[in-house]
């Protein structure tokens, strides 16, 4: 049983695997109520007035950072941005020193995006404020997985019995890792589809089905999540070229003919149209891409609310 008034049990959000299903339900319940706030003419509530949130994005990001910024401001928290270009990281300061400097300013939470896997855990082990992982290397992107699952839950009412196919560069994707954990625990069957060069070694130990062929992977699926292909994968010798990649793994309308009726298409963005997703499909009625963005603000409001009021609830 989830108790909405119980203190939130976590200091940090590092990955989805820390969260119980009850925790996830609480996040979704809060996100649903904040969705309503986001529809008002005046989209602001005083819930987090006086709280400060540092947005520490040591890797370029537009949508995630804007989403967190908007989530914080709509809850009346003060948000402070630390961009990678202006950051002392470019001057050679260690992550530890940056972290201790931020801590000394006594924020209530730090939202971190970093290219190194484990960077969020590194901060969480050393700092007293809440650390929210907004993407660390190839490791985890829990808020993206939560907003994806939330989007699908709103669409379907629940994920039990549904089949979700994740398509593309799994090996280098934090989005895929967090989604595999969360979607499977919420009852979905997860399929992964990619050339073997873009799958992690020993992926057999993951609770997923593996496909190389896109048509077979999509057969009967209720949703397909396309991942962004980083163009540097060609230089690393992992795929031959974009033309062949698109021919084999670009999701198009013809693949969806064998999918479940009303199949939904997701993409965490930013999209490479014509590489991993057909451009017309991205704009079609089955696309949930913009719903994901809207859900993202509500889910991040829910997370900031739960993490930043955990001490008040405890009193």
């Amino acid at each position: 049983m989830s108790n909405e008034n119980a203190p939130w049990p976590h200091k940090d959000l590092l990955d989805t695997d820390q969260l119980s299903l009850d925790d996830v339900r609480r996040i979704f319940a809060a996100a649903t109520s904040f969705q309503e706030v986001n529809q008002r003419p005046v989209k602001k509530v005083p819930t987090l007035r006086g709280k400060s949130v540092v947005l520490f994005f040591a890797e370029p990001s537009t949508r995630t950072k804007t989403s967190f910024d908007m989530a914080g401001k709509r809850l009346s928290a003060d948000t402070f941005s630390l961009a990678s270009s202006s950051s002392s990281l470019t001057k050679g300061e260690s992550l530890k020193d940056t972290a201790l400097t931020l801590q000394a300013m006594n924020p209530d939470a730090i939202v971190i995006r970093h290219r190194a896997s484990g960077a969020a855990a590194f901060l969480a082990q050393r700092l007293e404020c809440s650390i929210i992982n907004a993407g660390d290397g190839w490791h985890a992107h829990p808020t993206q997985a939560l907003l994806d699952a939330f989007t699908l839950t709103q669409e379907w009412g629940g994920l039990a019995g549904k089949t979700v196919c994740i398509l593309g560069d799994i090996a280098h994707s934090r989005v895929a890792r967090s989604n595999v954990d969360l979607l499977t625990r919420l009852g979905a069957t997860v399929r992964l589809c990619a050339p073997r060069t873009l799958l992690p070694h020993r992926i057999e130990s993951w609770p997923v089905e593996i496909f190389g062929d896109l048509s077979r992977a999509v057969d009967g699926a209720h949703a397909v999540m396309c991942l962004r292909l980083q163009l540097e994968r060609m230089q690393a010798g992992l795929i031959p070229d974009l033309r062949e990649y698109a021919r084999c793994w670009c999701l198009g309308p013809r693949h969806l003919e064998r999918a479940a009726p009303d199949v939904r298409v997701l993409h965490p963005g930013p999209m490479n149209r014509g590489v991993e997703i057909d451009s017309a499909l991205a704009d079609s009625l089955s696309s949930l891409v913009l719903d994901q963005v809207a859900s993202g603000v509500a889910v991040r409001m829910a997370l900031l609310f739960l993490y930043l009021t955990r001490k008040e609830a405890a009193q």
Partner: protein
Amino acid sequence: MSPDLVIRAARLACGTKDRPADCLVDCLCADGRILDVLPHDPARAFENAEVVDAPGLVLLPSLVDAHVHLRDPGQEYKEDVASGLTAAAHGGFGHVLCMANTRPVNDAASITEAMRDKARRAHPHGPRLHPIGALSKGLEARELAPMADLAAAGCIAFSNDGLPVPTAEFFRRAVEYAATVGRVVIDHCEEPSMAPAAGMNEGAVSASLGLRGQPWVAEAAQVARDILLAEYLGLPIHLAHLSCKASVDLVAFAKARGAPVTAETCPHYLLLTEAACQDYDTKAKVNPPLRTQEDVEAVRQALESGVLDVLATDHAPHADHEKEVEFDQAPCGISGLDTALSLAWSLTPGGLLSEKRLVDAMCHAPGRIFGIATNRFEPGDPADVVLFDPARSWTVSRETMRSKSCNTPWLGRTLFGRVVGHFMSGKRIV
């Protein structure tokens, strides 16, 4: 001749020709050499001799560490010759072979001589330092290092350790040239195009942590190359720090064919798996990386059976601030001189490693391979003796470690077994 040093009532770990293991002995030394090892007799008295009563203690020969990074010259904030040899003395090592990846690289006789001078000044009675020369100038695998010069200055072997040799042709010529000057080549086996120095095994843990992993193939492929070269050339090659089952299987195959290879592993490959890297613990980041339980068991069996000849530390000190960073930014390496004997000894009670094999792998085998006289407790052997208290527990900490660097996954853990006395040529160094 009368003894000038007597160690009384100690247990001799693996016995001698005449004295079975496990009996209490009195070890008599004179003029820096073993005079005799007699069954313990409480009534026997010695005049004009330093007498060390050692009931409950184990008598071991001074150990030989075939693989150490002393960081001196160039990175003395991590370790220097003096501090490294102090750690060695307290860890039970009387001979230390130090790798050439210093700054500058040990590719010139003057650098070798400077290292040996520092060692003699800081530790006149030992432990003794045996520099390993660079295989190629600057460790760049382009031009051979002046091996005849280096050997004359005191280099005991040659190695590329830290920077794998990418081409078989260069490696072949290096082995041939080293053999000409009477030295063995030690190869750090790593196919340099496959996730070099990732410090993390490619497998389930790297996949879930989102870290680049190095596949065991990267190590084993070079092991196979070296084995075939050694057989083809009929020249010895020593394979450093093997970590995985495939390498061990290849070495067994090589020995069955009579290829002149010898091989080593390290305590961490006997005791830890890739799981130690969970939570992005950079203290467990080491090259080659910690592998799986299957590999650990294969390496243990191979050490006990003698397929792996040598147990060395690969002592690789790094400062705290270098390790306290993102996992992919941290340098590879574990500080090992302080803990190796306690860790190896921890495998003896369960029979995973016999005392006989432990002593051979940590002393006589590297002595044989590199030409260092070791103590077999026979008359005339060097009086290089370690007194080890297997029951004494100690906690690994900044205070208890003698190395300048505490980058070990055992930091904060309690270990059993401590060196309580160490003599070289009959002179007390601990």
